[in-house]
């Protein structure tokens, strides 16, 4: 039997180091037993992925049946207009939103991208039924693409960078300011008016002020600790 010279505990014959202090076992009278089985197995277990097939099947069938039945009703009974496209599009959109529930393995970025594409598709259906003045291509589509890009940016920031809640809040405010300004500019373009910032300047100013305050708090440790103390839950 070998004892740890540092901790004074007896070690299992297969231990080459003391698990408590990592002192190497050097016992010329009893070398480390490398043949006997260790007290714990060497095989590492892995958690099997959760099977959500029942939920997937249930939600998919409910949505598919809803879409199908509404489509048939529209074709055969209530033929006034193509109202069923709203329901079919809505079902397709819900299905896309549910993708992370169906499979935990789907990349969150891909899921968000598909959500953006789904929303664009739904706006497209509305635009097809109510073409208007080209509002879809000049307003709804670019705004959806922009919103998706900003959400993706935030998701990447949260997942890749270990940042505090304050830093994340600063990013959200920055994105909100940029999004508001671009909304106003796109509306100006849509109405073919001169490009200028008016109402979005108020949002921009508020966001800049709060962002400046947040960045100051983030950069000054003493201030950050004070805020943490006062705001702790």
């Amino acid at each position, binding site marked *: 039997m070998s004892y*740890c010279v540092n*901790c*004074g*505990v*007896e*070690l*299992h014959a*297969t*231990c*080459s*180091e*003391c*698990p*408590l*202090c*990592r002192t190497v076992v050097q016992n010329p009278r009893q070398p*480390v*037993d*490398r043949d006997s*089985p*260790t*007290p*714990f*197995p*060497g*095989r*590492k*277990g*892995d*958690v*099997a992925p*959760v*099977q*959500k097939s029942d939920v997937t099947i249930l939600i998919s069938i409910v949505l598919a049946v809803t879409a199908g039945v509404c489509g048939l009703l529209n074709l055969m009974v209530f033929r006034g207009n193509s109202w069923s496209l709203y329901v079919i599009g809505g079902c397709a959109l819900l299905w896309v939103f549910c993708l992370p529930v169906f499979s*935990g393995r789907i990349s969150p970025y891909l899921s968000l991208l598909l959500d953006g594409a789904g929303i664009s598709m739904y706006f497209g259906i509305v635009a097809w039924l109510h073409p208007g003045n080209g509002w879809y291509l000049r307003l709804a589509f670019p705004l959806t693409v922009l919103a998706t890009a900003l959400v993706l940016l935030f998701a990447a920031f949260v997942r890749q960078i270990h940042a505090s809640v304050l830093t994340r809040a600063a990013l959200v405010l920055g994105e909100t300011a940029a999004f508001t300004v671009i909304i106003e500019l796109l509306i100006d373009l849509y109405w073919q008016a001169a490009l200028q910032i008016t109402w979005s300047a108020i949002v921009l100013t508020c966001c800049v002020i709060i962002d400046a305050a947040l960045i100051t708090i983030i950069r000054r440790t003493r201030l950050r600790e004070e805020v943490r103390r006062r705001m702790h*839950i």
Partner: protein
Amino acid sequence: MNMSKRTNHKTPWYRLDLSAIVYPTLQRRNFSSVYRLTAVLKEKVEPNLLQRAVDQTLPRFPTFKVAMRKGVFWRYLEPNNRPGPFVEPDIMNPCMPMSFQNSSRYLIRIYYYQNRISLEVFHSLSDGSGAMCLLKTITAVYLRMKGYPIPSGQGVLELSEKPQAEELEDAYLRYASSRVRPPRSRDKTYRIRGTREPFYTLNIITGILKVQQVLSVSKHYQVSVTEYLNAVLLHALLQKQKEDHVFRELPVSIAMPVNLRRFFPSKTLRNFITMVYPSIDPRMGEYTFEEILLQVHHYMRYYINNKFLNADITTNAAVTKNPLIRVVPLFIKDLVVRQFYKRVQDKQSSAGLTNLGVVETPDEMRPHIERFDVLMGQPFSARTNCAVVSYGDTLSISFASSIVEADVERLFFCRLVKDGIHVMIESNRKTGVK
């Protein structure tokens, strides 16, 4: 008598007991409230026989042969007649997260390795005492299959008997009768600083001691074994806090489950425990080991009695009896409970310590069993949990930790060695094994 088993013509189902409600809400991709009990036999385990023993035993324990289901307002357990659970070769990272959907929805796992039989249980099913009863019965049935005449009794249940109603009851509801409900707010406590291990790694260090040695040391200090081990762990945590050179010292506290069956007679095989929190506040001054012992001794004597424990379980029961809380949808309850646990409950203790006490078995089993081990499982946050159990003259103390550093374990066992107790160490740490 409040019965938690509801009979609806054909399909019985079980409400989760008061303790069991919390554990599923804490379920994460990388965390489940799973603990492990191990019987170390004197001969190598035969997996085929073990599987047969499990198959024969489980119908006698209907609350273990269940699946977790979600209702609109609460979760519940329903009988699970899918094939399984199947015995598996053991793994080096026990108490892995347990999904409610996988493994045919069973919430127990049975492993074998060399001469060990290990049972892992999701905490919503039972506490350590209930699960120990299952493990002892499985082991007894296994030994009978090997040809040894093992009688029932001492926690080994008779398979030919039908499960008794009392074994399936939610005993909390039977005994929660205090007219006052003590407040629960507690201070924030010291959190162990350490490097988190990668996903699914659980570091185990088991110390094997002689019961007689520990008893004589405890007797020397005029305290019980549980009080002595609590004091040693508190002392280790205080030393660790000092070594960390923290900016602001905080109280050091241990979350210790108390088996309520000792105070409120019940045969239930489900959860029937409550927590007590022996603690030391170093801001009041430097504590010697003897002073810590005295503090723990008096704390235990003051709080661990049927009056205080009754008040505590009444506070728990009040939450689930409140009609306003009952009608809140489950997903909101989950959200609130998870946040409460994360921000308040989990911060109220620096480590966990459970003492299952002396395991009794029929005398005929003793020649075939070397010892029992218990593992508290993966801690919710970065810290270490300690579990104690004794069998015959062997006391087993197992630490389960999800951090790389083993400072608390080292300080704990070094204190035992300093008190003249012989400690034999086993571990699954990569640096410690060949």
